């Protein structure tokens, strides 16, 4: 029924060959980023920080690091920045490889420059992993709330899953009788739903009808969860959790990630709600594409721009949180340097050795400011309403 390639006379008035060269959305974003000087500066600092942290990781780790952040030289303590080491008093392995103490030494004679490099890696991993966790949770929950939010959860399902979770936790806490009780309840619930799935047409017994009452929509459940999480002052929540758990880099990353997903969830939910009603999604459904393809190929790429912006801002705030925790002594345990604990160690010598405070302080300021400027710039650039002005 289809005739092969009928050549129709050219009816398009403005020919495509007369248009400016094609630009993909990413190329356009890059062009606008270069025009926005403040955001571009932030971006440069961001890239520099990234490579410095990678280099710092390479230079300060291993059995015999090039720059050893843990090398104690008590005879050389509190030397100011750029001072030359007294070579005659040092053993060969204690001599700093750069020939100078670039950022001075601390109260144990450790090279602050090496410690800052080691701390950069901590800040980078905490920032990226914590935000990675929170963005992953945010996209998942926000996507579910936005795309499948209109479905209702039955009261029975709520009770069933609560019992399952309780049973697992009680079993982990080794209070076996209570765990057994919860397991029994969950088992009864499983039986109820198993029978309903086998015979979907059979009416529910009158006494059990409350079990299938549609209690709450998926959307409402997730949004309420976000509201509850926002009620906690998150820094103190993190402080409590870290105080209870063993302080380690891994724990801090996970805890910061698990307490900062609310903003992303809201963003993603809002984007999904508005994109779901767009005509191109209706067209995709009309073509008969699967739900998964519509979500990941059609909706997600359009929802990602604001998520990237909030992730950039999130990295900055995760780094600040980590520095705050380290400063208070709840961060990465001491022999390992982080910007927060260098700052914390330095506060006792603030008048004798101000570089111990200023080096990490100014670095945190610059990096966090750069991330924030970059994030805010990206928000303007990715906003289509502001974009048309350029």
């Amino acid at each position, binding site marked *: *029924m*289809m*005739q*092969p*390639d*009928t*050549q*129709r*006379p*050219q*009816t*398009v008035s*403005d*020919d*495509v*060959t007369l*248009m400016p060269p*094609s*630009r*993909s*959305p990413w190329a356009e974003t890059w062009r606008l980023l270069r025009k926005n000087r403040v955001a571009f500066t932030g971006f440069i600092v961001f890239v520099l920080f990234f490579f410095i942290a990678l280099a710092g990781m390479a230079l300060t780790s291993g059995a015999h690091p090039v720059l050893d952040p843990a090398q104690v030289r008590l005879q050389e303590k509190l030397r100011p920045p750029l001072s030359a080491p007294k070579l005659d008093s040092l053993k060969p392995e204690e001599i700093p490889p750069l020939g100078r103490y670039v950022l001075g030494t601390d109260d144990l004679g450790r090279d602050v420059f090496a410690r800052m490099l080691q701390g950069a890696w901590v800040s980078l991993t905490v920032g990226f992993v914590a935000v990675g966790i929170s963005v992953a949770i945010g996209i998942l929950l926000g996507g579910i709330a936005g795309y499948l939010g209109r479905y209702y959860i039955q009261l029975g399902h709520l009770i069933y899953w609560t019992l399952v979770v309780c049973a697992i936790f009680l079993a982990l806490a080794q209070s076996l009788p209570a765990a057994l009780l919860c397991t029994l309840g969950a088992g009864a619930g499983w039986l109820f739903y198993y029978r309903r799935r086998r015979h979907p047409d059979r009416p529910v017994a009158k006494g059990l009808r409350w079990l299938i009452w549609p209690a709450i929509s998926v959307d409402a459940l997730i949004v309420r969860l976000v509201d509850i999480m926002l009620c906690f002052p998150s820094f103190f929540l993190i402080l409590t959790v870290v105080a209870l758990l063993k302080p380690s880099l891994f724990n801090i990353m996970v805890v910061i990630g698990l307490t900062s997903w609310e903003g992303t969830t809201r963003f993603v939910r809002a984007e999904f709600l508005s994109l779901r009603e*767009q*005509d*191109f999604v*209706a*067209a*995709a*459904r*009309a*073509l*008969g*594409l699967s739900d998964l393809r519509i979500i990941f*190929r*059609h909706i997600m*790429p*359009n929802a990602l721009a604001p998520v990237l912006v909030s992730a950039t801002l999130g990295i900055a705030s995760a780094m600040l949180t980590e520095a705050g925790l380290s400063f208070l002594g709840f961060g990465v345990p001491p022999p390992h340097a982080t910007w927060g604990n260098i700052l914390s160690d330095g506060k006792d010598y603030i008048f004798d050795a101000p570089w111990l405070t200023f080096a990490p302080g100014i670095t945190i300021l610059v990096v966090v400011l750069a991330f924030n400027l970059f994030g805010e710039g990206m928000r303007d650039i990715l906003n289509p309403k502001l974009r048309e002005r350029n």
Partner: protein
Amino acid sequence: MNETQAPILAVENLKKYFPVRQGFFKREQAPVRAVDGVDLSIWPRHTLGLVGESGCGKTTVARLILRLLDPDSGIIRFNGQEISLLDEQRFKPLRKQIQMIFQDPYSSLNPRMTVAQSIAEGVRIAGIRENTAQRRRIEQLLSMVGMPKASADRYPHEFSGGQRQRVGIARALSVAPRLILCDEPISALDVSIQAQIINLLKDLQQELGLSYLFISHDLNVVSYICDHVCVMYRGQIMESAPAAEIFENPQHPYTLKLLAAAPNAELVGKAESIPPLATNPAAAQSPCSFAPQCPEFAPACAHEPPALRVVAPGHFVRCLPKAG
């Protein structure tokens, strides 16, 4: 119209009510009757026009046919097969045969996909999986809608509204449909572009043997492209007639009003002859949904529900016969 042939699409007594919840306790109010018992038939290779003011349920009808919304009741038969009760899995193969062209060419294309990628989604569904074959098919579709091949690797934001609408048509054609629902395809476009798109649609119909449901609020356009016209008001078909008949012999007061509203030199005289609105309190209680607006409101209209009645072969009107 060829009455002996079976219609490609037959809609009977289609209904869709949207619940309205208001107030602090979200109590359910009287629902909005977006589509309230609509009957339509579209014959193969013909165009059915669906005309009415904004918010009268035209687009909802199209979305119900495409199953983007689920109807509350009614029958939709495509090619003789009942499709309103099929579940999504069994409806999927039929989706290829019914496609839609959207009103707003700015939101109907995914801004993060090139033209080729957008069309490729349909080409893949149509069963062409090999890359070079896909590419060949995309270029063929683009030339069918009068777009140069070089446009394939550009993004939607680089095109004008008319060009985007052409891409939207190419995407609809990518699965080789038999019926295309055109949801006000030209009302967002420049007047000069409108004619191009209408002619393109007519040419494609000739070439590919398509059937159209053409939704519009512009009677002039409808008269140009449609074989049969249905006039819709508040979710109901008020008048249904062959296109020529509806212009020569309009029966329903609402049709007259629409004709009068159209900027057409021939009808200017008629518009002035329509008396002002009736302010009869009985009109508010009338079973006829048009009664409060009706310039020809008669005492009988206050209680007797109007049913579709035959005026001439193929010409139906939902209005009581005039007394005397």
